[in-house]
C-alpha cells in the first residue's frame, strides 16, 4: 500500500495503516512524511514500512514485529519501549532513542542525540541492539539494564560520546569504536578490552549493519573497540538500612 501523507495528521495516517494491517496488508510505502508521530506504534505484525521523509516522535513505540526503513533523518523517541522488530534510519536521529527498549534492532547511519538507550533491558532471547554510525550525546546508556549498544563514530567527529555514559548502568554492554575518556563515564561503568567472543558478537551485527548502509565491513571492524560493562548488577544494593 502506498500512502501520500502530505499534510495528513498522524491520527488518520496511523489508523489507515492499522486498518490495512488488520486487513492483511504486508508492505507500506509512505511518501511525503513530515513529522507525523507514532508511525508503527503498537503494531504486532511482521509488516514492512518504508518511510520517505522525516517521521515524527515515537516512531515504532511499543512496536512488536514490523520492519521500518526511514530514508531520511528521524526525530525523538524512536523505538520507545519496543519489543521486537527492526528500524533502519538512513540519517541521524534525535533524543531518547530506544528508551526502555526490550527487543529488536535499531540501526542508525548517522548521529544520535542525548539519552540513547536509557533503561534498555533484555529478557532471555530478547536482546535489543542499537547501532549508531556517528556520535552520540550525553547520558548514553543511562540506567541501562540489558541489551547491546554499538557506537561507531564513523564520521570522525569528536567527542565520540557525551558525558555520563552508562550512569546507573546495571546490565547490558556498550561497545565504542575508539577511546572514551574516563571523565565521560558514569561511576557505575568499567572499561574492558574486547574478547574474541565480543568481536564475534559485534561482527555478526555489524556485517548486517554495513550491508544496509554500504559501509566497508572490514574497515569498520578494523577500528579499536572499547567495551563498557556495569561494575555491578546491583549498583544501589548497599544504600539502605532496614
Amino acid at each position, binding site marked *: 500500500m502506498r500512502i501520500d501523507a502530505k499534510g495528513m495528521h498522524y491520527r488518520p495516517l496511523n489508523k489507515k495503516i492499522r486498518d490495512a494491517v488488520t486487513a492483511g496488508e504486508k508492505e507500506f510505502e509512505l511518501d511525503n512524511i513530515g513529522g507525523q508521530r507514532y508511525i508503527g506504534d503498537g503494531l*504486532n505484525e511482521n509488516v514492512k514500512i518504508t518511510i520517505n521523509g522525516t517521521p515524527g516522535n515515537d516512531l515504532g513505540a511499543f512496536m512488536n514485529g514490523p520492519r521500518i526503513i526511514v530514508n531520511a533523518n528521524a526525530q525523538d523517541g524512536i523505538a520507545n519501549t519496543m519489543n521486537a522488530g527492526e528500524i533502519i534510519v538512513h540519517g541521524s536521529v534525535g533524543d531518547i532513542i530506544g528508551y526502555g527498549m526490550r527487543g529488536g534492532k535499531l540501526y542508525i547511519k548517522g548521529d544520535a542525540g542525548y539519552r540513547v538507550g536509557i533503561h534498555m533491558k533484555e529478557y532471555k532471547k530478547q536482546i535489543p541492539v542499537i547501532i549508531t554510525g556517528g556520535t552520540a550525546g550525553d547520558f548514553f546508556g543511562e540506567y541501562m539494564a540489558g541489551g547491546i549498544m554499538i557506537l561507531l563514530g564513523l564520521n570522525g567527529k569528536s567527542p565520540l560520546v557525551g558525558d555520563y555514559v552508562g550512569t546507573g548502568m546495571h*546490565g547490558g554492554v556498550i561497545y565504542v569504536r575508539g577511546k572514551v575518556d574516563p571523565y565521560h563515564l558514569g561511576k557505575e561503568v568499567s572499561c574492558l578490552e574486547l574478547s574474541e567472543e565480543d568481536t564475534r558478537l559485534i561482527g555478526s551485527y555489524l556485517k548486517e549493519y554495513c550491508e544496509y548502509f554500504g559501509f566497508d565491513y572490514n574497515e569498520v571492524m578494523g577500528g579499536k573497540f572499547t567495551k563498557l560493562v556495569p561494575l555491578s548488577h*546491583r549498583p544501589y544494593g548497599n544504600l539502605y538500612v532496614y
Partner: protein
Amino acid sequence: MESQLPAEFVVNVDHEKCRKCKRCVINCSFSAIEFKDKVTPNNRQCVACHRCATFCPENAITITENPLDYKDGYNWSPEIRKNILKQAESGGIILTGMGNPKPYPIYWDHMLLDACQVTNPSIDPLREPMELRTYLGAKPECLDFDGDVSLKTELAPQVKIDIPVVFAAMSYGAISLNAHKALAMAATRMGTLMNTGEGGLHEDIAQYSDRIIVQVASGRFGVTSKYLNSSALVEIKIGQGAKPGIGGHLPGEKVGEDISKTRMIPVGTDALSPAPHHDIYSIEDLSQLIYAIKEATDYKKPVSVKIAAVHNVAAIASGIVRAGADIVMIDGFRGGTGAAPMIIRDHVGIPIELALAAVDDRLRQEGIRNRASILVGGSIRQSADVVKAIALGADACVIGTASLIAMGCRVCQKCYTGNCAWGIATQKPELVRRLNPEVAADRLCNLLTAWGHEIQEVLGSLGINAIESLRGSRERLRGVGLNQETLDILGIKHAGIGQ
C-alpha cells in the same frame, strides 16, 4: 558492628498456658521465636505482626511495646534517637514501608457531613434504589443529537465501576501473586478495578483484564502492546504519595523466576525504576506518551496519569488534563508503599484532602473539569473518607493499605524485608502460600460490600439517590476545628454556618 539498638517489642509467653505445640515458632517469619526446651522469644527481631499471637491455640502470647523508658525529651523522641543509632551503625538511608505514620493533621476527621431534616426528606436506602455506579473517563462538553434520539457526539472511552472504590496500584513484586489474584478476583466480582502497579501482568490474572488497570512507569517493566491492550484502562505513573519525586528499587533477591517473567528482566537483577520517566521532561512530553498509548490501544482505553500530591498539584493536574489524560489520579502524602526512604515518606508531599480541593477548583475555574475524572488515594481509611472525598470533588477513591488490612495485613511496616508473615508483601513460596486467594478475595468483597452499604446510608441521609449527585457538592460538608485559610482551601464553611 554490634547493634546497641534496644528491642522495639517484647513477646510475652505464658508458659503455664503454653502446650509447646511450636505453632508460633513455625509461623514467625522474622525469627523472633525459637524453641529451646520452651518457647523462647528473641525480642529484637519482633515486628509486632501478630502472626504468633493470632495462631496460638492457647492464647498464650501477648506482644507489648518494650517498656524501656527513655530519658524525657520532647525534642529528642525515642524514634529519632533510635534512627540515629541505626544510621551510626550502618551509614544507610533508613528504609520503611506502609504510609506516613506521623501525627500530621487528618482533614477527613475535621469535616462533617450534612443530613436531611423535616424540610427536605431523607431517602431510605433499604427500600429505594440507590446508585453507586460511576463512569471513569473524559466527558464531552455538550451532547449533539442527530434528529431525535441518535447521539452525534463521539464519546471518549468510559470505564464503568459499580462502587466508587478502586484498588490501588501495588506491583507483583511488592506484593505476592496470591495477593494480586485476590485483588483481581474481588475487583471482578464487585465491578471495580485493580491496578498492576509497575510489575507487569502475570498470566494467571490476565483472565480478569477487563477489570485491571495496567500501569506504565519509568522502568517500563513488562510493558508491551499486548499488556496495554489487556486492560480496562492504562495508567502512566509519574509519582506516588509515599515517595514523590523518587523512583523505586525492587531488590534483586525478590526477582525470582516468576517475577522475572512478568517484569521481563533477568532473574536476580535489581528492578530499578528511575525517578523520572526519561522521555518525560515536560507536559508536552507527557502528552506524547499519553497519545503513544492511545495510538497503541486504538483510542479504546482511557489513559490515566498518576501523580503525588505536591505543592503545585493544581497547576500540574491542569497540565495533565490539557495533555490529553482521561483520568487524573492524585496520591496524597499518607499513601502507602512497599519500600521508601523514611525521610521521603514522612516529610514530602501534601495531604490529599487539600490537594483534591485545589485540583477540583482549578479544573472548574479553567472549565476543563469534564475532560478528566479525578481519582484520589493516599490513606482512604473508611467509607466516610470516600463520601467526603466525593463531596470535595473526586469521582472515586483508591484504596491500597485498607485492602491489604482486609486481607490480613497488620501494618507492621516491614513490607520491604520480604518476610511478610501474612503472605502479602513477600515472594517466599512458604509465606505466599499462607494467603489463600479465594479467602482473601472474599474478605475484600466483604469490605467493599460493607462500605457500599454505608455509603448508601449516608447518601440516603443526604437525601440523594446517586453517588454522582454528590460529586463536588461541598455545600454538604462543614469543617470543625479548622482555621479560615484551611476552610477556604477546602472550599467549605465552618460547622454552625447554615446556607
